């Protein structure tokens, strides 16, 4: 009976597959002019995947990408003016990513004020999640993808579904 109870608890925990860090960005939301909040767990993703067209090469690519993903959690904020937010607003999120299970795999910054960091969550030798913190003077995007994701394929979505494909020469011009 005890074993059954433990198994049921573990199964429930696995089914819930919560986001891997708290996207506690209420202070940022209060300053933003627009914000997007998307939380998709494994069952919603599976349900949504049924509506992807396997004959469409782009949607087939997304279907393939979703294999192994247990959840996608996104917070995206737009601001009316630069300086409406500060890096300190993101500290509650960054502090969680300094835990031992997370390791920063890449971080970029440009003179335009664009910054992007990608953190990988590992368990044993297996990657079990990704965190993305991307900022621009008037934009913040924080993403947590739980599960095993192929970043190369995710990047390839650039140029599809309205995603602008960024080339080195296409870098946005510095704001006046």
């Amino acid at each position, binding site marked *: 009976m005890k074993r059954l109870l433990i198994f049921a608890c573990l199964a429930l925990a696995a089914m819930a597959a919560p986001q891997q860090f708290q996207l506690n960005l209420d202070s940022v939301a209060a300053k933003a002019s627009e914000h997007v909040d*998307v939380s998709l767990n494994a069952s919603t993703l599976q*349900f949504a995947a049924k509506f992807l067209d396997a004959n469409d090469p782009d949607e087939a690519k997304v279907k393939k990408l979703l294999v192994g993903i247990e959840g996608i959690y*996104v917070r995206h904020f737009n601001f009316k003016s630069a300086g409406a937010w500060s890096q300190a607003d993101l500290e509650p999120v960054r502090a969680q990513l300094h835990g031992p299970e997370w390791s920063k795999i890449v971080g970029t910054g440009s003179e335009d004020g664009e910054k992007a960091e990608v953190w990988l969550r590992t368990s044993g030798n297996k990657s079990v999640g990704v965190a*993305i913190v991307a900022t621009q003077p008037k934009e913040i995007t924080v993403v947590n993808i739980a599960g095993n994701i192929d970043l190369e394929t*995710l990047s390839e979505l*650039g140029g599809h*579904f309205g995603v602008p494909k960024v080339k*080195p020469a296409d*870098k946005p011009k510095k704001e006046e």
Partner: protein
Amino acid sequence: MDWLEDELRRALAREDPPDGFAERVMARSARGPSGARRWLAAAAMVVVAAGAAGAWRQHQGYEAKREMMLALRLASTPINRIQSEVRGITQ
């Protein structure tokens, strides 16, 4: 033309219903629809409900797909940008 008038008068003449006609009509209306009709109505309702449920499920599915595509679009943009910057540096 008398024959025509006679024919018309005979055809349009007031005629009393047969005995018990009103009672039979009242009894039939009190019984309600027949069993077959009741089943037909129930089946029609089931078909309509199933159709509505299917349409609602499809609507939810497309809504979930739209949200998923939005999430992937927002996630892929910085990854794509990082990749292009890294390629720009290494080239």
